[in-house]
């Protein structure tokens, strides 16, 4: 028995042992996954509905000026707003014209 034959024999043995140690595969699922999927979808919908209801209960001004909404404003928009306010302070006589154009 040469070395190559020995290796092949060992490989076959190893494969045999592995096959015996693993449980046989069942091609069919032992349970139906669809009810669980439906349950997940329903749970997601209920959560969304609750979030929407909570948002609806709040006054729109509270939502508009909430800390989370204000913190989402990028810095350059704050800079633009500041520029407009500074402009109005420098040239207050233009305020009626601004009011006319809004």
């Amino acid at each position: 028995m040469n070395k190559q034959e020995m290796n092949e024999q060992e490989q076959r043995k190893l494969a045999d042992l592995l096959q015996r140690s693993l449980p046989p595969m069942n091609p069919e699922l032992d349970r139906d996954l669809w009810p669980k999927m439906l349950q997940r979808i329903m749970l997601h919908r209920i959560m969304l509905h609750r979030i929407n209801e909570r948002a609806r209960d709040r006054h729109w001004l509270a939502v508009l000026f909430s800390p989370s909404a204000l913190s989402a404003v990028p810095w350059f928009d704050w800079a633009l707003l500041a520029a407009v306010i500074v402009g109005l302070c420098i040239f207050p006589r233009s305020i009626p014209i601004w009011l006319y154009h809004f």
Partner: protein
Amino acid sequence: MNSHRYLRAYMAGSAVPTMMLLVVLTGFLIARYTFQIPIPIERAIVFPMALVPNLFGAWNMFYLWLRPRPHLPIGLHGAILPFILAPAGLTLAACLGFLSANAGGLVWFHEVAIPYAILAVGFCFGLIVYYLVWKYLVSFFNEVLGIA
């Protein structure tokens, strides 16, 4: 919530200038009775009361129509509006007799003289204001009415 989308867009667009109308009227009254600027309120209020809210509504409907097509972000879309509103406002003011032009600039309400250079800067500020209003306020109302 998918019915009457354009009506809702019109309402969302016109909500902001309609609310601002109170501020505009208060500002006009203060300017006239406190600072003695002779603003003809009954004529000057026509533009902010009748034209601006309707144009905002129509512009928001236009934005909704553009949505499935290639379009600008809502802030930039709103910043285009002064290019329509400013000439319309100037024309109406001239027709109603409270805006006149001279060599140095425009004279509003027979008293407030604005040099052309300041007008140009003011127009840029107007673009900024419209950009911010559309990006945050009109967009918010669109969201509230389910058309964001």
